């Protein structure tokens, strides 16, 4: 007796953004994705999101979070509140400067994407978050590359090259060709950088960070994920 092959449950995400148009846009992208991603809930601010999801919920693969909720100042407290509740947070913001990106990574967000980076990166980042696989967006790469904070992990020369090239091109294939690597190796480098970074930034309170540490410590290889 075998169970009928159920179609896999689609990934679910929540979107927290004060602009309607972003909710609409993200839902549209998620619907177009293959396999599709389901937007489980829409929120205009962090409080209303936390009221519904006060704790990490295994149903939610990720929370897409805008930085500037209701004001024109980045609301890092809201980011921290959602991260501390145990959610995998993907910050999706207009802001592109390195300080803001690094600060968010320091708070413990999984991925930082600039709104200009568009559809492909967002879908990829959501999938990565659902498997606890580290994902780096191009602007996040640039920010990590330029991070001079002494507490940050030492990146190898190769890793820096990959980060810079990824930011310059947004194409793993052409980076691979330039650096004479396989595209999967480019991905591996990026994941390893993210893992190192997450581990150096904060104690591993979330599952994603625990995995990240494990990758860095060599307990898991990135390919195993």
């Amino acid at each position, binding site marked *: 007796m075998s169970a009928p092959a159920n179609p896999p449950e689609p990934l679910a995400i929540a979107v927290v953004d004060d*602009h*309607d*148009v*972003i909710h*609409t*846009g993200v839902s*549209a*992208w998620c*619907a*177009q994705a293959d396999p599709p991603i389901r937007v489980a809930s829409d929120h205009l601010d962090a409080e209303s999101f936390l009221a519904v999801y006060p704790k990490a919920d295994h149903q939610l693969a990720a929370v897409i979070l805008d930085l*500037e909720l209701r004001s*024109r100042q980045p609301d890092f407290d809201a980011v921290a509140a959602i991260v501390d509740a145990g959610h995998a947070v993907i910050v999706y913001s*207009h802001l592109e*400067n390195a300080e803001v990106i690094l600060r968010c990574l320091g708070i413990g967000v999984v991925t930082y994407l600039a*709104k*200009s980076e*568009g*559809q492909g990166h967002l879908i990829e980042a959501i999938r990565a978050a659902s498997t606890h696989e580290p994902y780096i967006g191009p602007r996040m790469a*640039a920010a990590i*590359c*330029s991070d001079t904070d002494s507490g940050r992990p030492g990146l190898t020369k190769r890793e820096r090259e990959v980060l*810079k090239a990824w*930011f*310059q*091109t*947004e*194409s793993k*294939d*052409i980076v691979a*060709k*330039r650096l004479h690597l396989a595209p999967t190796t480019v991905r591996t480098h990026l994941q390893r950088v993210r893992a190192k970074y997450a581990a150096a930034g904060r104690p591993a309170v979330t599952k994603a960070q625990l995995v990240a540490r494990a990758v860095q410590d060599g307990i898991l290889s990135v390919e195993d994920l």
Partner: protein
Amino acid sequence: MFDTDTGAARRNFLQHAMRISLFMRHGGALVVYAIVLVSAPRVSAAGTAFACLAGAWSLYRLLTRSATPRIIAIDYAITIAACLALPVLASNHQVCPSTCAPIAIAGTAVASFTVFEPLLNMAMTAGVAAALAAGVASVDGLRDADQWITVYYFTLLWVASTFIRMLTVRVAEKVDAARAERLAIELRQKVNAAVRDYDREQMRLLHDTVASTLLMVGTGTALSPDRLAAQARRDLRVFTETSHAPAPPADLVAALRDHATHATTPVNYAGATAMWVDGATAATIAAATREALTNVDRHSGATAVTITVQSGRIQITDNGCGFDRAQPTRGHGIADSIVARMQQLGGVAEIITQPGHGTSVELLWPTRTSANPAAAPDPERLIERAHMVFGLALVAYALVNLMVTVPASLSFAAYPQLQWALIVVTTVATLAAIPRVMGRTNPRARFGIVSLVIVALVQSISMPIYDLDPRLQWAEGAIGWCVLPLLLSVRLSYAVCVLAWCWVVPAIYAIIRNPSAHTIIDLGYDTASVLVAQFCALVVADMIRQSAAAASIETESHMRRTAAAHIADAVQEEYDRRYADLADTIQPLLSTLADGEPVDDETRRRAQLEYQRLRILFDQSSSFEHVLLRELRPRVDAAQNRGIAVSVDVQGTLPTMTVPTARRLARLVDQVLHAAASPARITLTAETAAVELSIMCHRAGHTDLPTKSSVGDEDEFDLTTLDDTVWITVRHLLPERPTEHVSAGQPT
């Protein structure tokens, strides 16, 4: 570029000096006329009448202190008349030579005229001298040498004050020039900062609204047409309502009246009838007031409302039903529209009400307090420099005066050795003022002051009774001037006491030894010519401080006005340069979207393009002024016009580079962009002595691509193609880098 030369230091200095000159002229004259009147029984009736009238005029002038040319012309005419008439009308050979009074008047007058332009000063002085000579000649006094003893004194005083005027005015002019230069720089910085602020605000606004809509449309996100239309309408409003100039100062009361027109409850105004605040503040306060009035209309049932306007405070009081603040029902309008608005200004809103007792809404905001004039910054050291010039001139004058006065007395005086000793002490004490005038604190002024006070006393005592002659009493004419430079840095009341002491000691001695009318009148004339002049010199130091403070206040307000005008112009220019074009293309696009028409491929392509243009603006705004971006901009614009979306990213702070280098890099970019089909991605990465340029694009057909760097021979050049994707990076080393390899292999 900027008109920052106000000439304020020079103008204020001369204005203040004019007041002192007036005090000198009329103070001296008043004393002289008083003495003439005291000796009235011995002078003619006409002389008494003249002295009364002229003295009354001087008193009037001292009280009103006007300095119009007409009034000064009257002053001058009276001085001339006194020179001509007094020797005839008011002389009495029994008490005083006939020239004493006119010389004292003429002397203080010419010294006071030195405040005018040198040529005018000389002409006026020549006129007075001629009138004096004519007057004296009419009583046949020209040959009496005794009558001319004080003329040398005034000549010297006139020469010295003419010099002091020239030197201090030159200091003021130099300060004005230096200040103009500094202000021009400050103004440029201010204007640049204002334009940057404006840009930043504009960017944020576009970012938050228009850019996100265009991004969604451009990336083909499925949006409901209604939603999109609503969004576009909102964006359009934000875009068109964006004020492109900082609001000019506005009359708050007028703004209130304007915003209160909708109110149905009758509005009374109390307090200030006009209050100028900066435009943004006025708009915010007026908006908060409007909301308060709306509440009065809607909820209070009031029959009258009073708006009381005071500085930093507005009260809106109605006679309506009031409400219970504990009831949470009416929160929103008050919290958001009134309280939040006032908080935005750094102020507060207080609502005082209770059911049945009306409502009073009080809006409070911080007002800028004007800078304390005493603490006015003086980076050009106007006060210090003017003080130094004045102090040194005084020292020089005191010494010359001493040298001229003393020889006459030495040949007659008793105890010549003592006189010599006193002269040496006086000279040394006077010279001791120099370090203090130059800004040192040592030696202490009081040693010099005490020695000179003692000299005045001893010199008077040493005089034999029959030698009481002005020529021998050199302490009387000289010590006061010698002590003056030492008194510049001490408290004014103390300085006045010391000067009076130096004057009173010889005077008292003179009266004790020879208590005749002759002595007293003689002393009176000397008081007019010496003590008044010394008091005037004493207040010059204070006058310099006051005029410098007045000048810096004037300069500052001029600067504020100029800055406001220039900022408005620069922001307008900036808008025309960067946003007007944008508005031209984005507004029609948003209008199309706002009409709710379905998004077709053409609209999507346009949205992509406009979004990229916005992105470039955002990118450029950070390192807008770098030479490389300046060179890139027209080429990127040209590519955009060909329909290629180009994004430009800058990582890090670009190092300095020469214009030719930037131009060669830009030309390389241009070459690639000409070979590109949409879109292209340009990244500039800054390193300390190098810049890395990366261009990523899709190649159009079989166009030519550069195969090596055309910028420098040592550049690293990489070209990677994958299908139609082209990625070129050029790492250009900047020549500032020291060429270490040259010396590395050589033995030292």
